[in-house]
């Protein structure tokens, strides 16, 4: 735990000359009029930035994270309520408004440095710098599986504990007793000797005027009452009766509806458009040239969509217009070869001396892997409602990055960020996609252009063809094995390194490692996609280690285990997954098990996938997940995230491919960008280890291990090694042996 500055609420610094690091402190309530106007109602006192207690002793956790299904709002409320000793049934959750006071500084810090021991240099305009760094790093604001381990650990728990201490101190003053004589439970302060028992709310106003303790005392795990317990999610009741409000559900008086077609080739612009037919269609307000897209504004979405189809557009030429998937991978391959020859590849990691190790190797194994671009395909297509009026712009949408949207919309309209207001809603999936403001900016421009509020809804085709994609990556490996099959060197070169920086690294004890990367830019827009770089490197590294195990003729589970003698958490999740999956028991004909290990976002995950391959078709029967998040704040929520991460990873591994043809995306809807459905979904079992190591994330760590566990299982069943995703590219040559032939 770092030091918390009194009064101050932001600590920021720069590490290594470039990485912005920002700490979070708590701030006293009555000194934050800027926040009070948004979150404190009548009779309520703002205790600090993250907790509100009203006159009825109802506690509101003011959560600076949005809800896209991951359940973090409930888990964060649990963290706050537990440290506060609030009564859980009186706790609710309010998403913090998109104001700079709530900027998610903890996230930047956790993402960049990963621990709290940082030099501090105060930065005047923290927000501005933060946004620049965020943008440069394609950083998600609710993302990076960070809500619990940064905002929760450094914000919510501290805020809850501090608020409790201030309340107790206030009660002690009022009653003329020592704070030590008081205890707290279920939102009450109790003085047993004096027979006194009052709700927190009785002292909220006095407490709000106090300077918060600089280092409040946090509970130890044995004192937890709400953390680690199954609490039904606060958002679920509204999601079973149709009342939950998503961005697409927003209705504003006088609103028109719009839909867009962006240039099919990335970077192209409108050359000319013929709107004569569309103009005459029913309900059409206007066909609008957005320069890189054409929009129709109409009285209803359907009318806008029909009219848009009737607009004839020609587009300018663009750089990427001759590009296709094959040429992209050719580019990756030649850029890697060139960099290797010239010695100009970027060094990512070097341990020992791989040159020496390869020179004395008994055998050298070389493998190449590649994965395609992927779309996010959130169930709720991109959309936003905007109202531009009197130089100010209101945005209603579901976003992982409300503050970023505010700044980006302001920049696009060339108005002051203070004149943009963003109201956030539930997201029908986010997965990284809803950190990018493109649809909100389009809606804002359309509203300004036509002078009335606009709800912009993208078609599914627009959503799939104008995403910020999970990047396609090629990755080449070489390993040296000694005479006993032990790996002595690990060499890897890949294209385009993003975040998290450790994604290509493996914990396996191999004495000599050299990892390099090459920049090989393309015109395809890319962005964060659930688990970010882990989604590609998890497949590469866990496939290659599996191949080395087979080369060494060692069981792939034992092979990994043998290389993890100094990594207890890694071994423990592997052991648990293997045990629960009956790894050592024979699995039967046409069937196979595969295992994979991932250390991502502070959480260890081992997965065992079981498949049956018949008539060239892969059926995923069962997935066993062992997860060590340090501590599971919301155990059922963690299980749900593992299930979700596995299905997301399976969809990608089995079918996921965005291919490029003449610079445009080929796929457009769920018919050609298929999903795992009920009839193809496996049984998923999740087992949790609470190691009490630093708490990790949950939203992403379940995804990256799924593809390699699956393809390793397919290899075990068929002998076919999948080195290029998706699996649907392969035809399996399975030899069927009839029972009577054996």
């Amino acid at each position, binding site marked *: 735990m770092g030091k918390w500055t009194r009064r101050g609420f932001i600590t920021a610094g720069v590490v290594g000359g470039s990485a912005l690091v920002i700490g979070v402190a708590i701030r006293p309530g009555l000194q934050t009029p800027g926040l009070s106007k948004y979150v404190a109602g009548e009779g309520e006192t703002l205790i600090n930035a993250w907790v509100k207690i009203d006159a009825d002793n109802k506690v509101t956790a003011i959560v600076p994270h949005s809800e896209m299904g991951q359940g973090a709002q409930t888990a964060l409320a649990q963290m706050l309520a537990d440290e506060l000793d609030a009564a859980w049934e009186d706790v609710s959750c309010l998403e913090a408004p998109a104001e700079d006071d709530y900027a998610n500084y903890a996230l930047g810090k956790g993402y960049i440095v990963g621990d709290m021991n940082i030099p501090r240099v105060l930065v005047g305009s923290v927000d501005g710098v933060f946004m620049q760094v965020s943008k440069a790093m394609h950083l998600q604001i609710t993302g990076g599986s960070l809500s619990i381990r940064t905002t929760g650990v450094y914000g919510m728990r501290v805020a809850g504990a501090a608020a409790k201490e201030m309340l107790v101190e206030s009660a002690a003053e009022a009653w003329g007793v020592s704070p030590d004589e008081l205890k707290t439970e279920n939102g009450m302060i109790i003085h047993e000797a004096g027979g006194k028992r009052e709700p927190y709310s009785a002292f909220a106003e006095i407490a709000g005027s106090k300077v918060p303790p600089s280092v409040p005392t946090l509970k130890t795990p044995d004192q937890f009452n709400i953390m680690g317990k199954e609490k039904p*999610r606060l958002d679920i009741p509204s999601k079973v009766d149709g009342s939950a409000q998503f961005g697409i559900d927003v209705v504003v008086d006088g609103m028109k509806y719009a839909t867009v077609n962006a240039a099919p080739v990335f970077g192209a612009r409108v050359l000319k458009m013929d709107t004569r037919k569309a103009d005459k269609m029913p309900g059409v307000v206007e066909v609008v040239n957005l320069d890189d897209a054409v929009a129709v504004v109409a009285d209803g979405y359907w009318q806008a969509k029909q009219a848009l189809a009737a607009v004839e557009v020609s587009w300018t030429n663009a750089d990427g217009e001759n590009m296709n998937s094959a040429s992209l991978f050719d580019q990756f391959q030649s850029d890697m070869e060139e960099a290797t020859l010239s010695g100009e590849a970027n060094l990512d990691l070097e341990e020992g001396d791989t040159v020496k190790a390869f020179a004395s190797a008994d055998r050298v194994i070389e493998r190449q892997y590649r994965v395609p671009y992927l779309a996010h395909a959130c169930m709720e297509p991109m959309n936003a409602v905007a109202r531009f009026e009197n130089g100010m712009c209101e945005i209603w949408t579901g976003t992982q990055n409300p503050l970023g949207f505010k700044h980006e919309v302001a920049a696009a309209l060339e108005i002051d960020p203070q004149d943009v207001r963003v109201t956030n809603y539930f997201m029908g999936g986010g997965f990284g996609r809803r950190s990018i403001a493109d649809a909100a900016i389009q809606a804002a421009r359309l509203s300004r252009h036509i002078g009335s509020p606009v709800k912009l809804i993208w078609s599914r085709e627009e959503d799939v063809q104008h995403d910020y994609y999970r990047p396609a990556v090629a990755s080449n490996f070489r390993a040296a094995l000694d005479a006993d099959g032990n790996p002595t060197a690990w060499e890897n070169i890949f294209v385009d390194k993003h975040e998290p920086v450790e994604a290509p690294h493996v914990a396996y004890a191999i004495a000599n490692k050299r990892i390099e990367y090459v920049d090989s830019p393309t015109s395809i827009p890319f962005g964060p996609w659930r688990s970010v770089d882990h989604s590609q490197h998890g497949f590469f590294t866990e496939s290659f280690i599996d191949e080395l195990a087979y080369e060494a003729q060692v069981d792939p589970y034992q092979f990994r285990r043998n290389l993890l003698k100094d990594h207890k958490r890694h071994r423990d999740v592997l052991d648990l997954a293997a045990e629960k999956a009956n790894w050592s028991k024979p699995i039967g004909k046409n069937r196979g098990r595969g295992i994979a290990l991932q250390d991502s976002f502070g959480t260890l995950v081992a997965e065992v996938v079981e498949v049956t391959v018949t008539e060239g078709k892969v059926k995923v029967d069962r997935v066993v997940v062992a997860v060590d998040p340090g501590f599971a704040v919301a155990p059922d929520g963690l299980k749900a995230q593992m299930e979700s991460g596995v299905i997301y990873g399976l969809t990608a591994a089995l079918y996921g491919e965005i291919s490029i043809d003449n610079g445009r995306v080929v796929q457009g809807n769920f018919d050609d960008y298929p999903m795992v459905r009920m009839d193809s979904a496996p049984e998923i079992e999740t087992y949790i280890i609470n190691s009490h190591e630093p708490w990790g994330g949950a939203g992403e760590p379940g995804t990256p291990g799924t593809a390699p566990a699956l393809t390793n299982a397919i290899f075990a069943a068929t002998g076919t090694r999948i080195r290029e995703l998706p699996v649907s590219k392969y035809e399996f040559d399975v030899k069927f042996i009839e029972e009577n032939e054996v």
Partner: protein
Amino acid sequence: MIKLNVNGRIHRLDVAPDTPLLWVIRENLELTGTKFGCGIAQCGACTVHLNGVPIRSCITPVSTADGAEITTIEGIADGDELHPVQQAWIEEQVPQCGYCQSGQIMSAVALLRDTPNPTEDEIDVAMAGNVCRCGMYSRIKRGIQRVAGVQVFDPKTSQEVQHG
């Protein structure tokens, strides 16, 4: 003029007859629980009941629904009492983002009305048209089985399910 009977309420609307029912429900009637996901009947987010049959409202022209009984997610609870499928969804903590769940629930309600004790295969077939990008399939299945189980052990609830 098209006459729509949605959740027992009659609406008379002047809309183009080829407008998909989905957009009439969402925009004209402002019943936003029914969702847009794909527009081509591939995801099931827009599922509603037309005379008790689950349909994809994104490809159903509003003219086909003229005079028919339409039920949306907003119309399956009995006053304040949730439909047993909705209750099971809470008990199994099914939704994550929740966007697909109106459609999932409408498909599940229809399945359980026609097949009160579905086998796993029957569940797979009935629910395969509904995509859940959050991947909550095993919870959806458990939710359905929970209602099916209740029917066996609790005749009162069973009756309610059959009323749909």
